[in-house]
């Protein structure tokens, strides 16, 4: 197995970890962090598979990931602004009231 496949598979693991945390952690900021991890996992897969070429690495996935990083920071900023506004409006940091679905947080 070449070394870039290690990164691609690691990216898939990151994506799965981020998905679980996105769905399982009730706090909204944890969800934002989990979405960032999912994005980083996808980028690892893109560039890891882009290194399959024999000569230079493929520059198109690198450009796409560069675009993706900027879009991810825009998404994070907007998500955090929405969380803050939601907190200002309702006083809660989770979607359900604490203790509603058995979570102790």
């Amino acid at each position, binding site marked *: *197995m*070449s*070394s*870039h496949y*290690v*990164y691609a*598979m*690691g990216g898939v*693991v*990151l994506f799965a*970890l*981020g998905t*679980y*945390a996105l769905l399982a*952690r009730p*706090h909204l*900021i*944890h969800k*934002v*962090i*989990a979405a*960032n*991890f999912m994005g*980083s996992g996808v*980028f*690892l897969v893109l*560039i*890891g598979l882009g*290194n399959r070429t024999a000569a*230079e*690495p493929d520059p198109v996935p*690198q450009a796409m*990931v*560069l675009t993706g*990083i*900027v879009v*991810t*920071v825009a998404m*994070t*900023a907007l998500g*955090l602004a929405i*969380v*803050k506004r939601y*907190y*200002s*409006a*309702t*006083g809660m*940091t989770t979607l359900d009231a604490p203790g509603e679905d058995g979570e102790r*947080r």
Partner: protein
Amino acid sequence: MLAFDILLVATIIWIAVGSLSQAKLFKSVVMFVIFGLFMAIAWIRLASPDVALAEAAIGAGVTGALMLDAIGHLRSRETPYPTGPEGAGEPDA
């Protein structure tokens, strides 16, 4: 260098598990910034220095600052803003 790559990917996954399983938000964000720096090393190993520069600056730096600010915002008030009539005055144009 395959051993180094395996070790780096294992470290990245370990930091991710650590960040996503923390109870405290501050520790999660700190580990996210560390994760960003290790991702920059991974991008170097994958022969993409442009992405490494962008990840270190944007992914670890700006995102970390935004998250720390959000956490501080949640912590510094016990009661939320009074929700008065929104849009009562347009902000400066």
